């Protein structure tokens, strides 16, 4: 069988074309171009070009045209992209082989393909991450419902029974020890409930999306103040203009204010009532909410720590502090793309400044 081949090579730099004829064993019969490396003339094309070596036997059995495109390999120690076209000629048993150097075209295509593939893989990874987050959210939901129902309920029952015993058996309970015991049960039940509420609110914050609404800031603050005024030794000054309206998430704002105020009350000075002033300022791109108290103050070294979950300035059970309140503040502020600063003087009080971005559409 006769195999004739045209080895047509176009190099990027020297740009020449060669037409070479090979016999059935792949030996060069004739070359019409003296630029062809002499040494190669004596070589077997199937060994010289290992792309062909791989399919040597299959070419012999070929009865129609075979096109192998976009083949990257080293030819004369030079990497490049080539198209191979092998087709039977009119003479039976004879074949033509054309190898085209397409390096420039395919190099560009390779660049485009790489960008495309990278973005496909990135997308895939993002999808997986989303799935993971949604699985985690599902877990949090289960955990939250576990906390609110399975843990909270028995504690509420304990609290209820302590109340009932206190009321029903008042004479019997007149005995100090028993009364003390019941109060102890009650206090711990309240404490456990608070802990559960805080953990629940903290974990829930992560799931909820920010819902922007028009918020009447003065009345929101007034409502919060009212709740705290009932049971605590505290004087509030609401310095927010009654007409103040902002666009933000009222639930997050309420959580921020609630926890900051509750914190100021918890850490008030022992010998005088808490004085808490709330101010508001609107700048071009952001709002500033300021809460000023006359409490114990916070040591400079501890200011960074107080927003970490479960951190308490001084761990005393009578504070009834879970150590989560300020972490809720921190999370809520982050959700509003804001930040908080704290200025504090020991024995004089603290100023918490909450900066949060205005909503831009």
């Amino acid at each position, binding site marked *: 069988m006769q195999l004739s081949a045209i080895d047509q090579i176009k190099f990027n730099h020297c740009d020449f074309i060669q037409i070479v004829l090979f016999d059935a064993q792949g030996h060069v019969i004739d070359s019409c171009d003296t630029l062809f490396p002499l040494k190669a003339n004596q070589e077997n094309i199937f060994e010289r070009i290992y792309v062909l070596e791989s399919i040597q036997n*299959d070419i012999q059995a070929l009865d129609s045209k075979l096109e192998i495109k*976009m083949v990257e390999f080293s030819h004369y120690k030079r990497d490049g992209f080539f198209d191979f076209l092998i087709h039977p000629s009119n003479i039976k048993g004879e074949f033509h082989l054309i190898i085209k150097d397409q390096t420039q075209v395919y190099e560009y*295509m390779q660049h485009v393909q*790489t960008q495309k*593939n990278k973005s496909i893989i990135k997308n895939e990874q993002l999808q997986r991450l989303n799935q993971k987050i949604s699985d985690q959210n599902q877990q949090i939901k289960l955990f939250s419902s576990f906390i609110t129902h399975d843990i909270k309920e028995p504690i509420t029952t304990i609290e209820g029974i302590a109340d009932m015993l206190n009321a029903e058996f008042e004479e019997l309970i007149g005995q100090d020890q028993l009364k003390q015991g019941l109060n102890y049960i009650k206090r711990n039940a309240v404490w456990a409930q608070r802990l559960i509420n805080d953990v629940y609110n903290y974990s829930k914050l992560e799931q909820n999306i920010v819902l922007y609404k028009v918020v009447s800031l003065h009345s929101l603050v007034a409502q919060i103040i009212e709740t705290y005024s009932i049971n605590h030794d505290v004087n509030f000054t609401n310095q927010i203009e009654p007409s103040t309206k902002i666009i933000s998430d009222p639930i997050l704002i309420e959580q921020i204010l609630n926890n900051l105020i509750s914190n100021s009350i918890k850490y008030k000075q022992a010998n005088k009532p808490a004085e808490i002033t709330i101010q508001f300022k609107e700048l071009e791109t952001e709002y500033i909410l300021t809460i000023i108290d006359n409490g114990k103050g916070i040591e400079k070294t501890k200011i960074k720590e107080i927003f970490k979950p479960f951190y308490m300035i001084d761990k005393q059970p009578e504070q009834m502090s879970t150590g989560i309140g300020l972490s809720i503040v921190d999370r809520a502020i982050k959700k509003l793309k804001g930040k908080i600063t704290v200025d504090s003087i020991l024995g004089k009080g603290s100023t918490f400044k909450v900066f949060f971005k205005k909503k831009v559409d």
Partner: protein
Amino acid sequence: MEYSKKIILVGQIGVGKTSLVQRYVKSIFNEDYLSTIGVKVDKKTVHVENDQVNLLIWDIAGEASFSKISKSYYLGAKGCIYVADCSRISTFTDYVNQVKMLKELIKDIKIITVANKIDLLDKQELEELKNNVSFDFYTSAKQGEKIEEVFHEIAKKVLCS
């Protein structure tokens, strides 16, 4: 005796086919991803007992692995290394079907399956993967883990065909 045998590498984009070949043929690893378009052909000689096998390695682009144009790349292949990426589930969820398809498409082909990039999993994750799917080899082109073994095994298999 000396033999020339063509093997192909297939698998989805970015699983590390080119990296496996580069590690095996040139003992190098490149962190940067440059997609293969079409096919990249390399050659390396392996000794299996007293025989010398010239492995002609056709590393087919993931983009083209199962498309129409890949048929011409399959011609004359005696062996196939199917590669998946253990850090991307999507690259091995369908591998059983794809291996089956290759067997139907290429007569008498010998196939081995490889889960690459094990360096991206921790011990526990790797154990979990091994419990759920069974590949013939678990490799890392990055760390050069089990690479020689893969190519030696495929050379042994194609030698018998």
